[in-house]
C-alpha cells in the first residue's frame, strides 16, 4: 500500500521514515541477546531483505513483521529441562523475555530451520508453534506455500495452479516440478522436511568451549562479577584439561537485566589453561565492564583454542632463551602488557638480512621464535659503525660542504648549526633492486639503483650524528646540486 492511499484511509496516520540501518542494529542487538540460549544464532537473510524492501515501500512497522532470527538450539535445551519439556521451556522463556522487553514476537521450534521458519510465520494455532520430533511433515501440510521461503513469481504460479498448501506439493512428481520451477522449491521443501541439510551461518564464530552461569538475583558488584568469572574460568579450565587444549582467546559476556549484553575479551600469546594467570588477565578487563542495573547471566567462551603442549616448546636454536621466556613468566608479563597497551606495542626484535639500515630490525609478536644466540652480534659485525638511535624518517638537513664529495663542514638541523670537526665515511649503501619498492612497483631494469652515502660526523660539541646524501653529487641544469642530505641517526 502506498503512503498516499494509507493517508486517504486513515487521515491521522502517524508516519515515520524508515531507517534500515537502525533496524539492522536492533536485530543485531536482539541476536546478541539470543546468545544466552545458544552460540549458534543466525539473522534470517530473507527477513533482513524483506525489512529493507518494506521500508522503501513505507509499510507500517519497523520490520514489517518480517525480520527473523534462526537459533540452532541442538544440545542447549537441557538447561531448561529434559527432552521435549526442556525445549518447550526454552521456547516459552524466549518469548516471555522478549515480550517483557516490549517486542511482539512469534517463535516456533522444529527439527529443521525451514519448518520453524514456516511455523513461526504461518501457524494458525498457538499449540502448533511447537513441532514435536519428526512431526514437521504433518505440521507443514496445512500451511500456505508462502512458508517455503520462495520468491514471489514462483508463489504466484503455484497459486494459479491451485497449489495453495505445502501439503499439496507432497504427492507431486518431483521431476516435472523441478523442470517447471527449477531446483529451488524442491530444495526448500526438502530442507523444511529434513531430507536435505541446511547449514545456518552463525552470526558470530561458535566457540568450541563455553560455560555459563545464571543468577537467581541479578548481581552488580565488581567483587561478585570477579567471583563469578573465577568460577566460570575454573569450569572452563576443566573442559580444557579434558580436551587437551589451552585458550588463546577468551571472551566473557554479561547479560544484563535490561536486555543488553556487554562483552570483553582477553588474548594470550600461547595456549593457556592456568586458571590464576587467566584470572589475572581478566582482572585488568573486568573494570571496563558495566553491570548496569544488574547481571542475570554470564557466559565465558573460548573462541580460539590450541593444542596444549604442557610447557613452552623448547626451540632448538635458542633453547635456553625460549625456556627462560616460558618458565619465568615473561610470556605472561607480555600478555598482561599487551592487554592494556595493545599487542602491536609489545614486541620482540628480530634481525633481518638487509643492507638498508631501517630494514635490519623487525618487530615481531612476543610469541614468535626469538633470534638465535649471537645472530645480532653476527649481523652487527657485518655492518660498519651504526647509530644507537635510528630516526624512523630521515630528517632533511641543510649542508655546507667545501668539496662536493667530502663530508660536510657544517650542517643545520632543527635551526641549529653543527660545525663538523671529525667525520668518517662515506659508506655507500645501495638500494636493494631485487626487492619491490614500498609502493609495490618493481624498479625498472637497466637503471642505476638509488644509493646513499653515509657519513658518521662529530660536531664541535662532541655530538655524533649519522648523515647521508641520497645519491652522488651532481649539478642540475640550474646549477643547484641534485643530491639532498638527511640525518638518519644519533651515535653514542
Amino acid at each position, binding site marked *: 500500500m502506498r503512503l498516499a492511499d494509507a493517508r486517504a484511509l486513515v487521515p491521522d496516520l502517524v508516519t515515520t521514515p524508515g531507517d534500515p540501518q537502525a533496524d539492522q542494529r536492533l536485530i543485531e542487538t536482539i541476536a546478541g541477546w539470543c546468545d544466552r540460549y545458544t552460540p549458534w544464532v543466525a539473522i534470517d537473510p530473507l527477513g533482513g531483505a524483506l525489512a529493507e524492501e518494506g521500508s522503501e515501500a513505507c509499510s507500517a512497522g519497523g520490520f514489517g513483521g518480517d525480520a527473523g532470527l534462526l537459533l540452532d538450539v541442538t544440545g542447549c535445551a537441557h538447561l531448561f529441562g529434559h527432552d521435549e519439556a526442556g525445549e518447550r521451556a526454552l521456547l516459552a522463556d524466549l518469548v516471555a523475555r522478549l515480550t517483557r522487553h516490549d517486542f511482539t514476537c512469534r517463535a516456533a521450534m522444529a527439527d529443521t530451520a525451514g519448518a520453524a521458519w514456516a511455523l513461526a510465520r504461518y501457524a494458525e494455532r498457538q499449540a502448533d508453534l511447537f513441532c514435536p520430533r519428526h512431526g514437521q511433515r504433518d505440521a507443514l501440510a496445512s500451511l500456505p506455500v508462502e512458508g517455503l521461503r520462495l520468491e514471489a513469481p514462483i508463489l504466484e504460479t503455484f497459486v494459479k495452479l491451485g497449489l495453495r498448501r505445502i501439503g499439496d506439493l507432497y504427492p507431486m512428481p518431483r521431476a516435472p516440478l523441478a523442470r517447471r520451477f527449477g531446483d529451488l522449491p524442491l530444495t526448500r521443501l526438502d530442507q523444511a522436511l529434513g531430507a536435505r541439510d541446511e547449514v545456518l551461518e552463525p552470526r558470530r564464530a561458535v566457540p568450541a568451549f563455553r560455560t555459563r552461569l545464571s543468577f537467581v538475583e541479578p548481581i552488580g558488584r565488581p567483587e561478585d562479577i570477579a567471583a563469578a568469572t573465577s568460577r566460570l574460568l575454573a569450569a572452563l579450565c576443566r573442559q580444557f584439561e579434558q580436551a587437551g587444549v589451552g585458550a588463546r582467546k577468551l571472551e566473557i559476556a554479561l547479560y544484563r537485566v535490561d536486555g543488553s549484553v556487554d562483552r570483553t575479551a582477553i588474548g594470550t600469546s600461547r595456549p593457556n589453561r592456568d586458571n590464576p594467570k587467566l584470572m589475572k588477565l581478566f582482572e585488568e578487563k573486568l573494570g571496563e565492564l558495566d553491570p548496569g542495573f544488574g547481571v542475570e547471566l554470564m557466559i565465558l567462551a573460548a573462541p580460539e583454542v590450541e593444542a596444549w603442549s604442557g610447557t613452552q616448546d623448547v626451540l632448538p636454536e635458542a633453547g635456553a632463551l625460549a625456556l627462560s621466556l616460558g618458565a619465568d613468566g615473561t610470556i605472561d608479563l607480555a600478555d598482561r602488557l599487551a592487554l592494556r597497551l595493545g599487542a602491536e606495542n609489545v614486541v620482540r626484535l628480530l634481525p633481518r638480512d638487509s643492507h638498508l639500515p631501517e630494514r635490519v630490525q623487525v618487530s615481531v609478536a612476543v610469541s614468535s621464535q626469538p633470534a638465535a644466540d649471537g645472530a645480532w652480534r653476527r649481523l*652487527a659485525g657485518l655492518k660498519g659503525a651504526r647509530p644507537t*638511535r635510528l630516526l624512523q624518517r630521515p630528517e632533511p638537513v641543510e649542508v655546507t660542504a667545501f668539496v662536493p664529495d667530502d663530508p660536510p663542514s657544517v650542517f643545520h638541523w632543527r635551526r641549529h648549526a653543527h660545525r663538523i670537526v671529525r667525520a668518517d665515511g662515506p659508506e655507500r649503501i645501495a638500494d636493494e633492486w631485487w626487492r619491490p619498492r614500498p609502493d609495490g612497483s618493481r624498479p625498472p631494469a637497466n637503471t642505476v639503483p638509488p644509493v646513499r652515502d653515509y657519513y658518521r660526523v662529530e660536531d664541535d660539541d662532541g655530538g655524533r650524528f649519522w648523515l647521508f646524501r641520497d645519491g652522488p653529487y651532481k649539478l642540475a641544469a640550474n646549477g643547484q646540486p641534485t643530491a639532498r642530505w638527511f640525518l638518519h641517526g644519533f651515535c*653514542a
Partner: protein
Amino acid sequence: MPVISPSAFASSDRRAANDPAASVPTALREKVRRLERANSVRRSGKAAAVPLGLPAIDALLPEGGLLTGALHEIEAGPCPSGRVAPHDGAALGFAAHLLGRFGPGTILWCRRTIGRFDAPPYAPTLSPWFDPARLLMVTAHRDEDLFWAMEEGLRCPGIAAVLGETRAADPTAGRRLSLAAEKNGVPALLLRAQPAPPQSVCATRWRIASAPSCSTPGLKDVGAARWRLELRRNRFGAPSIAEIPSWLVEWNDETHCLAVVPETLHGSSGQFFEERLFEERLVS
C-alpha cells in the same frame, strides 16, 4: 667543572678507612643501609650490586657497584658548550652498558613514541652490550601506561632489568618504581633525553654528555666514543671530594670495554700529548 683524577678518589677512601674518627659515622651509615636493604636482597637471592667495570667509579658506589634493587636515573646532559644536547645517543649507550652488566634474563624496554620524529633504539648497535634477542620492547602512549608497564616488569621474576624512556618526572611513580625494584631486587633505569627535576628516591643519578672523541693523529676521523659522566646523586655510596664526581670515559667499539680516560688538564690536552708522542715515534 672540578677535575679530579681517579686515583684521588681511591686515596681519599683509604684515608677514611684508616682514620678511626671518620670510620664511626661510616660504620653507622653502613649498618643503617644494611638494615634498610637486608630484606630485599635476601628475598631476591641475587647479587646486591653489579660492578660497572670501572674501578674508579665502583669505589664510590655502595657494595662496589650499581645496586640491583633500586631506581637509577640516566639523563642526557648539556653539551660542553652549555647548549642543550641535540640527542641522547651517549646516554643511551651508557644505559645499554648498565643493562649489559645486569644478570641474564629478559630486558624490558619501555618507551613513549613522539610521533614522526621518533628515533627508537637501534638493536644492532646495542649488541656489543647485550644480546638484543633479550629485549622486550614496549611502546606506551601515555606516561601512566609506561610507569605501569615498568612496575609490572619489575614484579616479574624473569626480568633482568627494566628501562623506561620518558621525559615525565612523576614523584609518585618514581617512588612506586623504587619500592617495586627494592622488593624484587630488579634494577629500574629511567632514561631521559633532557635533564628533569631529580627524583628524590633514585639510588644514583647519572648525567651523560657526548665528549669530543680522539682522532687518529694526523687524521680527522671519528674516534672511539667518549662520554662525560657525572654522578650527580649517589644515595648509599661513599662520599667523594668533588661536589659532583665526573669522569671522561671512552667506549672502545673493538674491544667492547668502557674505560676511564685519565685527565690531567682541561680540554684536549691529553690528545695533544698523544699526538706529540705519535709524532716523536714517527721521527725516531
